[in-house]
Structure formats: C-alpha cells, structure tokens
C-alpha cells in the first residue's frame, strides 16, 4: 500500500538517544527506590536473643525489665 510508505515517512522517527535516556532514568529510579538495611552484627543478635529469652523464661517480663532499670 503506497499510503503506508507515505504515512511512515511522514511520521518522525524517535531520537537516537532514547536508550541512553531510558538507562539514565533506570539508574535514577534505582537510586530512589533502593533501601539499604543496617548491617546486623553479633551485638545486635545477642541483644535480640537476650530479649527473646527474657520474654520466654521470666514470668513477668515487663516487671523484670522495669525492676532491672532497662524499661
């Protein structure tokens, strides 16, 4: 169909740098969305373990923590 050729010729092609723009926006989006959690070390693990142990073993954990000045 000759009309098809005409219509395609009469419609501007995209600029050549669209892929570059896409990559730049991807990087930008990644920078915005990325959430970095703080590293968990031995100290943090020991604190969580102690808390879990207190809650599991002590009959009145809130009272215990309050009496020991930690709460």
């Amino acid at each position: 169909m000759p009309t098809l050729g005409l219509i395609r010729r009469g419609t501007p092609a995209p600029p050549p740098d669209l892929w570059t723009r896409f990559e730049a926006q991807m990087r930008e989006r990644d920078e915005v969305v990325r959430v970095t959690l703080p590293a968990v070390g031995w100290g943090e693990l020991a604190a969580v373990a102690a808390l879990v142990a207190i809650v599991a073993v002590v009959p009145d954990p809130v009272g215990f923590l309050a009496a020991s000045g930690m709460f």
Partner: protein
Amino acid sequence: MGSVSEPSDETLLLAWQGGDASAFEALFRRWQTPLHRHLTRMLDDPAAADDLVVETFLRLERHRRRWRPGTPLRPWLFTIARNLARNRLRGERLWGWLPLTAVREDRDVRQAMAASDSEIQRRVRAAFATLPPAQREACSLRLMADLPVEEIARVMRIPTGTAKSRLFHGLRRLRAELADLKEE
C-alpha cells in the same frame, strides 16, 4: 516483527527474565520506533512520545515478573503505552482549564512545530487529525506497529469485528486524504 534469524520477543523476554540485560536492550531497540510513531500519532506531539516510550519500558521493566511464557509481548507493550497516553491526554484536558494565556502559549509552540514539519509530515499529521480518535488509534496500531487485527482488538479492548470496522473506515479516509501525494 522478528524474522527467522532474529530471536522472537518472547525468547528475548525469557532471556531477560533469566538475567540477560542485553536482551532487554534488544527489545527496546526493536520496539522503540513503532511505539514512538504510534504515540506520536496518538498525542500529536513527538517530544511527548519520547517521554512515553521511555516510560512504557520503565513500566515493562518494573512489571516483568507478571509476564507469563506463551503470552505475546506486543499487546502488553502497546496496552501500557495506551494507558500512559490516555493519562497524559486526560492531564492535558485538565490543563485546558488554565487561563487563556497559558493555552495560547501552548498553541504557539504547536504552530511553530507544525511550520518546521516537512510537507509530507504536515499532510500525514493533518490526515490523522481528520479521523475520530477510535479510528485514529486502530489505524495507528496497524500502520505504525504492524499489529494484526486481533491484537488491535485486544489492546483497544473491543471485539475483533469492531476493530476491523474502525480500520476499514479509517484507512479509507486516510487514503482519500493523501490520494494526491505520490511516493518518490
């Protein structure tokens, strides 16, 4: 799109889901021109089409896990583009409520753009402008992106018969509008 020697869209999508970043770039480069031409015809604004091509692929990237093997890419891609274009047009209509000076400035920019078009570009643009929006969309999907009628119907969410009818009337009108132009 996609000849015997080239991997299909679906093969590229699978490779991309498997971690091959170059497969996504190949998809982008394969579809950027048909998408851009289609969006230009939909929005009558090549600069806006630039933005929406990039945004379409950003959305595709974000939702890539939703794609299931065996599902064709094209209707999905053009449906994303369609939704983005409709949102944009809706936004522009809202902008139309701005004071007249702002609207006039926008019109001036468009008129300057039109003046810089080649004669063929101007005629094609004018021919598409004569079509009702639904015919314009169907014709653009067919002529700019080579979508078969079934996929046009799927993208536009209409029965295949309706898509055929819109294409028939739209193409007839385009041919009539451009009848005096000759291929060089």
